[in-house]
């Protein structure tokens, strides 16, 4: 190309105000972008807070598992030393468990961690509830008695605050310091009492005994030195035996293993449960047969959604074809028959089906009246898969017809006529010429119906009975009845993943911008 700007001065093209045109344009564009973003920002923020954060919260809850570590910190820390997992752990773990449970029971948190662990091993919940009452009655008072018999000063709150104010002593008696702090916290926060006026709990003396008997005391405090010399002669009890007396299951290695496996702050456990696996001592294993329900349920959800999608194509294609090929005036009127169900409340349509499909309902009445079915053998049309499929096909049919119709409208009728003029039969012309052009509509409609179907809750809940329910009904059950929110979140996350993949495909085929309403 020749340079036809040779006679203008070299250098960048300038705008009227003397700036380079490029910079000027960029500035104008930037202003436009900022204005656009400012208009969008309020809504974006609104959606982020009201919608995206909740979804993120759900994803977080599906792996979050801080409750075990937060409620039983000493137990979990002591378990690091537990080597032979075929046998119950040693005294240290139970000592930690004793104080953890005591604290949790005072704050009424032991039932929460009990129910959390109960999802993984049935029976833990009642063990924890029982232990919450039991740990206060452990025989650890023998330590309290022996220390106070040794020196009455041990019963004084002032003695303790004096000792615990000294950082060297705190370092020498780590368990005691932690136990004393815990006791003060329990007294003030859980019982709303003044520590100075309360008796110091047995578990503080128990910790003191463990510290002194374990590593001794080599400091200069006279009271402590005297105690350290005396503990060798103290009567002692095994805290592990105390737990055994409470319930033999506490010495069950499987129980302690469950606590250990679910001690990390984040766990894949809920996701594993959602696919019928479990986390155990031997790594990831399959759930016992009788607890395998989720893979079946996902399979049923997918299968029923496919059946619903298939029946929607079968019923929707002829209607869309008819609407697209009738004169505008007629098709607009018939379109109302499609749009009216689309606009009618979901609950109205579901109640209509519930009423119609009952054993004493209109459809069975008609069948009996016609004579197809005997009066004593009325069909079971509701509270099973049939009911869900019929009602949901009806509810989702407009979502199939509308995209099909909009694609079919764009197919020029001249193609079919050309095919026929070249000798094709009606069927060949339809199958080889018309049908391939309507496939994008089928694809769009199918994905739309499928996405809507697999997440459906209301209709399966009302007409599905026991066999016609979807994964969403299970999610709702875990949120509101079993209160296993982590599992509900994991099931929801899997469902969300499936829907997002399908949606991505839908976007590829149809494009989000082409979503039409009404």
């Amino acid at each position: 190309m020749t340079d036809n700007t040779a006679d203008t001065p070299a250098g960048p093209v300038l705008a009227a105000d003397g700036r380079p045109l490029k910079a000027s344009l960029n500035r104008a564009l930037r202003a436009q972008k900022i204005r656009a973003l400012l208009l969008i920002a309020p809504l974006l923020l609104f959606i982020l807070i009201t919608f995206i954060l909740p979804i993120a919260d759900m994803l977080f809850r599906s792996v979050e598992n801080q409750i075990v570590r937060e409620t039983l910190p000493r137990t979990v820390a002591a378990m690091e030393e537990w080597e032979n997992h075929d046998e119950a752990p040693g005294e240290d773990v139970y000592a930690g468990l004793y104080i953890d449970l005591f604290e949790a029971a005072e704050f009424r948190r032991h039932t929460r961690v009990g129910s959390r662990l109960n999802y993984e091993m049935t029976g833990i919940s009642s063990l924890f509830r029982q232990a919450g009452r039991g740990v206060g009655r452990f025989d650890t008072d023998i330590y309290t008695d022996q220390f106070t018999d040794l020196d009455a000063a041990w019963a004084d709150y002032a003695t303790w605050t004096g000792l615990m104010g000294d950082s060297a002593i705190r370092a020498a008696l780590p368990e005691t310091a932690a136990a004393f702090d815990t006791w003060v916290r329990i007294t003030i926060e859980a019982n709303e009492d003044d520590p100075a006026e309360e008796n110091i709990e047995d578990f503080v003396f128990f910790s003191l005994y463990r510290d002194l008997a374990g590593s001794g005391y080599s400091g200069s405090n006279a009271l402590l030195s005297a105690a350290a010399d005396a503990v060798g002669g103290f009567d002692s009890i095994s805290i592990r035996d105390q737990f055994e007396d409470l319930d033999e299951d506490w010495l069950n290695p499987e129980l302690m293993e469950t606590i250990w496996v679910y001690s990390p702050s984040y766990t894949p456990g809920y996701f594993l449960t959602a696919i019928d696996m479990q986390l155990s001592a031997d790594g990831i294993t399959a759930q016992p047969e009788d607890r395998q329900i989720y893979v079946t349920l996902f399979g049923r959800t997918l299968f029923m959604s496919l059946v619903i999608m298939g029946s929607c194509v079968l019923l929707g294609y002829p209607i869309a074809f008819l609407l697209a090929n009738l004169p505008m005036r007629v098709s607009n009127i018939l379109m109302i028959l499609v749009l009216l169900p689309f606009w009618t409340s979901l609950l109205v349509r579901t109640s209509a089906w519930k009423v119609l499909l009952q054993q004493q309902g209109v459809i069975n009445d008609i069948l009996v009246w016609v004579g197809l079915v005997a009066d004593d053998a009325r069909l079971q049309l509701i509270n099973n898969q049939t009911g869900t499929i019929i009602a949901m096909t009806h509810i989702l049919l407009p979502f199939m017809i509308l995209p099909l119709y909009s694609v079919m409208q764009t197919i020029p009728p001249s193609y079919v006529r050309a095919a026929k003029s070249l000798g094709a039969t009606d069927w060949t012309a339809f199958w080889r010429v018309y049908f391939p052009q309507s496939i994008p509509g089928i694809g769009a409609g199918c994905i739309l119906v499928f996405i809507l179907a697999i997440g459906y809750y209301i209709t399966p809940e009302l007409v599905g009975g026991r066999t016609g329910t979807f994964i969403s009904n299970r999610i709702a059950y875990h949120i509101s009845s079993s209160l296993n929110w982590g599992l509900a979140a994991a099931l929801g996350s899997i469902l969300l993943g499936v829907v997002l993949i399908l949606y991505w495909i839908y976007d590829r085929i149809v494009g989000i911008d082409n979503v039409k309403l009404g």
Partner: protein
Amino acid sequence: MSSLPPYASTGQKVWFYSFRVICGLIFFFLIAPIITIIPLSFNAEDFFTFTPGMLALDPDAYGLDHYRDFFTNPDWQQPLWNSVRIAPMATLLSVAFGTLAAIGLSQSHVPFKGAIMAILISPMIVPLIISAAGMYFFYSRIGLQGTYLGVVLAHAALGIPFVIITVTATLVGFDKSLTRASASLGADPVTTFFKVQMPLILPGVISGGLFAFITSFDEVVVVLFVGSAGQKTLPWQMFIGLREQISPTILAVATILVVISIALLTTVELLRRRSERLRGMSPG
């Protein structure tokens, strides 16, 4: 397809009519359940099927008992009132935020347009049960669970995609030179918006608003989790009624809702035609 050519063979005639019969049956399947409940709602007795008296068109077999129950029973009046309080507020929020954002999105240079659009549309794509679960978890954390505000915010979020879609669709046909003309005549952007742009996109805004309204008014899954007994809406009461002791009053409520949806459908259709006429897209 619209009519049979005179030279059609017998086979073609048979197919032509049987196809129409098939379509008729499918239309019947679509519309019959909705139509059937209307006469059933006037049943004088507490049955869910046509009594012999009704089939014989005996006037005594029909009655307004179920409607009377709906309008006098506090079990239904309180939910109705709650629905009426929640849906318009949610609609207002969706329309206000949604219209602004749709105008922003329709500008020619929007960075990250795809990603923003995906986020704004997401409440429509994510299955309701998942939105409900997430909102239940998160709103309990921040103390919105079981409050009027929580339900309104949740419903507004669900209605926003509909507003975005309808308003951006309207703005596609909007002639930008009109705003430039207005600006050249000395109008500031706010005046231009309210005097020029708003009247033209109003049909889209209103039909988006109607979609948002019906979304909120019909919604049951999210309110079931985010709301508490104090926010029990009409669909919620229907859901309980259908799940526990089904009372024929539900049919009366359903009939009233069908009438409301017919009214809304007509409005949206008229608005769509008006909007297309204004944009010169079809003779309407």
